């Protein structure tokens, strides 16, 4: 069964910023079609972890594999590790969609232009093809009627949905969500979570950093709790959220839930 294959594989990942060691040996697999939720206090290294996966941060040591291929390095003929070329790194990044807390839409482009930019420039799709594709994903996030608006004229929830459509339009193998709803007013989080829920249902492989515990519990197949740069708790959501073995995880959850 293909769904059993590990599409993302993280091995002994470490990341330091100068003297500060943020990730201290993280190891986990993500099965294709599954949803992994990453929780943890602010500053525990959740963003850094996601950013190491698509090489926005260069890991200090350890390995990340996407679909069996190493990200950011290759093995030379003599068996040594060498940094990968910029072109290869870009190619790998295109296979990982990322959604940021602050949306990060490009303000000088319309909604549709934001969505079709990478398909045209990176995948070299013809414009017409890209527009069809872009509209398909915009309708998926319910924003087809806004295609000619500039991002500044949209609400936060709408902007985040455009950002999701923009990532999806590259048809990545895996989607990374870094606190996709944390910058939104409470009444706007629902529409974004709705889109994410639908993606999870369709079998999109997702790594989700979130503080929306109800949502996480509902959609994820597995949850990990990061503390001090290490995985402190790891298991099915029912267990991690209801009966964590780690005292710190319990404390964290009681703080977030109240």
């Amino acid at each position, binding site marked *: 069964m293909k769904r059993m294959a590990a599409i993302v594989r993280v091995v002994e990942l470490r990341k330091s910023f100068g003297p500060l060691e943020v990730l201290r040996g993280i190891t986990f697999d993500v099965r294709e079609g599954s949803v992994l939720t990453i929780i943890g206090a602010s500053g525990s290294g959740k963003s850094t972890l996601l950013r190491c996966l*698509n090489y*926005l941060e260069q890991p200090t040591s350890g390995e990340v594999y996407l679909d069996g291929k190493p990200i950011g390095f290759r093995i030379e003929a003599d068996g040594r590790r060498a940094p990968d070329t*910029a*072109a290869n790194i*870009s*190619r*790998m*990044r*295109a*296979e*990982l*969609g*990322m959604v*940021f807390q*602050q949306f*990060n*839409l*490009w*303000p*000088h482009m*319309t909604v549709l232009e934001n969505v079709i*930019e*990478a398909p045209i*420039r*990176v995948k070299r799709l013809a414009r017409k093809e890209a527009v069809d594709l872009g509209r398909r994903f915009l309708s998926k996030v319910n924003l087809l009627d806004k295609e000619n*608006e*500039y*991002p*500044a*004229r949209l609400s936060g929830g709408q902007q985040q949905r455009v*950002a999701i459509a*923009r*990532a999806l339009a*590259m048809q990545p193998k895996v989607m990374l969500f870094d606190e996709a709803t944390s910058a939104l007013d409470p009444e706007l989080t629902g529409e974004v979570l709705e889109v994410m829920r639908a993606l999870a249902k369709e079998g999109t492989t997702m790594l989700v950093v979130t503080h929306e515990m109800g949502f996480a519990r509902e959609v994820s197949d597995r949850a990990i709790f990061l503390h001090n740069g290490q995985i402190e708790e790891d298991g099915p959501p029912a267990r991690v959220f209801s009966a964590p073995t780690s005292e710190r995880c319990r404390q964290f959850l009681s703080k977030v839930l109240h």
Partner: protein
Amino acid sequence: MLGSLRESLDLTLFWEYRAILLRGLLENVYIFLGGAMLAMILAFAIGVARLSRRWTVRVLSTGYAELFRNTPEYVLLIWVYYVLPVIFSRLLATRFNFSPYAAAILALGASYSGFMSETVRAGILSVPREHTEAAMSLGMSKWMIMRRIIAPQAIRRMLPEALNQFVSLFKATTFVSLIAVEDLMYKVSMITVHEMRPLPLYTGAALVYCAIIVAAAQLIQHLSDRWRRRGWA
């Protein structure tokens, strides 16, 4: 006395020479265009180099910008026209000369590239790092990100400042008569020698320069407003 003032301000003399003066003015315009083009190309390269991760590149490009920014255009013009050919002649062991036009474009282009590289640098820095990261996460290359994401936003932010620098550059083109480029000022001084009536001629020249700069500034302002209105946050 008032009468003689009125007579000397009578611009009909300026108007009589319009064909010659217009040819002179066109020289200003050509040198402006050449200098502006050169300045923009250099400024972009230097502005990007000043943000390089390599410190040698940063130091060299910053040194270049400071050198040309702080040398008066006039001195630079003379230096490029009279001194640089001497250096080249020694190095190449042949006679070497710049045409006054080439010297003017080179000197003004280099001088303003120093100012403008600072504007370019600030423009690039004004684009949030997150926009670049979003593009990187979609697999876009460095060059593509510069061209499609950073430059369009940076240029819009640079416009007001760049406009001021273009105006200064146009004003600075009036120095080129000093190295015998036959621009408007050069023609005016030639005609003055004949007519012995400097007042209407120089007043006319001042008014023409002023009118051109005001008109150009209005035009660019109008264009940049229109750009900005296109959904600018």
